[in-house]
């Protein structure tokens, strides 16, 4: 009687088959994801308008209200929707505003002198590559896009590949000490060595990517079933009486972003604004998102634009342990919370992961087919019942 296939061989075949039937899709998602990580940096390289060059060595950034005043001079009537202050000081402010023709435009604004250096054209590379990677451009109609499910479901074979890969190569840590890449033993050996070598160095990255992507899948499923992790708060609106009455001949009050941020800083001194939303209506608040001491989480505060009092805030300390974990998933996935160096690290490992998918496919093409045939043959010999002839 032949030997039953060893469990290691079973794990091995499982590992070999996890990525293969969808390798092209996985490859595409890994590749676009890697590009998405540095999409902002690519725009910085391609388009000088997105850079923040100080006009002189001792120039200091303007206050946000002053920036808005300069924008109003250049684009009369423009009304602020939202403003992004990039983490990296080399990047221009990104200001989204409505113009009197009814369009919403995105301006790249020099933070030192308020000059509108450029305007987002018809094509937004950053948003496009994210949509391409994250949901294959499929529409969100009253729920998560179908492409979102398809992409985030890839976390399952990715995590499976990680686990089975580690089980198969239990002594993987040896490769850290003695890396091996044989160039002269044929293509199969080369792709195998490269696959293992890249894989062991990518273990933490693959663990992060597959875990966070699995959360994106769970998040969509929870949303579709109306389950929420954080308690849903009713939308905060300013009472009708709290909005001032203004005579017809006078101009309506203008919210001050600087005053709003000052009010938040008075309560939370280490708050660093990253993203500002103008009030959506006369009864809305100035909402400021920013990072405090814990860089993974965006803190949030809403300020009444008439009284400049903080009406509501959601800081790190206000969150439950579960919320801290779930809200850390996105920054962990995209690597946008520490600066350029981390983006480049994420990009490098993203490219390596893309290469893992490709080398895995190459190995499969050269070996797995035969290995599986052998395994199935063994099972058949060991089977207790005779099989009918074909």
């Amino acid at each position, binding site marked *: 009687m032949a030997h039953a296939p060893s469990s290691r061989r079973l794990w091995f075949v499982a590992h070999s088959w996890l990525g293969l039937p969808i*390798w*092209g899709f996985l490859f595409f998602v890994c590749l676009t994801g890697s590009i998405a990580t540095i999409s902002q940096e690519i725009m910085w390289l391609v388009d000088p308008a997105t850079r923040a060059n100080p006009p002189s060595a001792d120039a200091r950034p303007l206050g946000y209200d002053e920036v808005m005043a300069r924008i109003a001079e250049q684009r009369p009537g423009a009304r602020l929707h939202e403003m992004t202050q990039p983490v990296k000081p080399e990047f221009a402010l990104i200001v989204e505003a409505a113009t009197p023709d009814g369009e919403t435009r995105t301006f790249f604004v020099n933070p030192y002198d308020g000059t509108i250096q450029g305007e987002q054209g018809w094509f937004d590379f950053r948003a496009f590559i994210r949509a391409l990677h994250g949901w294959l*451009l499929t529409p969100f109609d009253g729920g998560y896009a179908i492409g979102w499910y398809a992409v985030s479901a890839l976390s399952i074979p990715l995590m499976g590949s990680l686990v089975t890969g580690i089980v198969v190569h239990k002594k993987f840590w040896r490769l850290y000490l003695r890396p091996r890449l044989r160039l002269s033993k044929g293509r199969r050996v080369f792709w195998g060595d490269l696959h293992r070598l890249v894989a062991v160095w990518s273990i933490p990255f693959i663990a992060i990517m597959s875990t966070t992507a699995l959360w994106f899948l769970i998040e969509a499923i929870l949303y579709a079933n109306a389950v929420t992790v954080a308690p849903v708060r009713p939308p905060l609106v300013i009472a009708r009486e709290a909005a001032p009455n203004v005579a017809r001949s006078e101009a309506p009050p203008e919210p001050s972003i600087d005053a709003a941020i000052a009010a938040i800083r008075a309560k939370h001194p280490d708050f660093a604004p990253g993203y500002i939303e103008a009030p959506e209506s006369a009864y809305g608040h100035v909402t400021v998102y920013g990072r405090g001491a814990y860089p993974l989480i965006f803190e949030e505060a809403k300020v009444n634009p008439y009284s400049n009092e903080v009406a509501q805030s959601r800081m790190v300390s206000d969150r439950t342990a579960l919320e801290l974990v779930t809200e850390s998933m996105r920054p962990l996935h995209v690597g946008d919370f520490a600066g350029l160096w981390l983006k480049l690290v994420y990009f490098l490992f993203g490219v390596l992961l893309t290469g893992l998918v490709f080398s895995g496919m190459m190995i499969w093409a050269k070996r797995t087919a035969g290995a599986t045939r052998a395994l199935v043959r063994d099972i058949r010999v060991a089977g207790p019942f005779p099989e009918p002839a074909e």
Partner: protein
Amino acid sequence: MIALPGGRRRWRFHVCALMLLVPIGFAPGYFQRLDLEGGAVGLGEREIGVLRLGRWKARLAELDLGPPVIEGAAGPIKTFTLALEGAAIDEVRAAYAKIGEPRSIRSAGALFAGAPYRQMAGVAAPETATGDSELWLTFEGWDGSIEQTSLPLADASPSTVAWLAGRRRR
């Protein structure tokens, strides 16, 4: 002969690469939605017309031609877009829309959000709404004054009326 991987059938496992065609198929819709949301194609997919509320003037449109969309607990929601014009841009503090006549300013309906040049409101389609219902617009000035107008829902959103008729039959 084991009909497993490999050999002549190996090509089948590369069929998954055709997944890459999926985004190409969805790309036109993706860009159309961006244009619609950003206002590049105008106020909405269907302009309803010019409204006059006292001394104020505004244009109203359906954001998209489709019927109301069920949005979780909020129920069926139909999105309208509004552009304040002339003096209304600086004088109107808030604009509201509601299917059915509001009893007071406190129940004026959905508050339009966004810049005066193009603001949006998700208007609920209540259980009591019928094809004969009216869409009521309420404007409130910075000086506290209030103006109202109404138009037949059939003029404001034929797709909503058709959707309501379907709901009645069920």
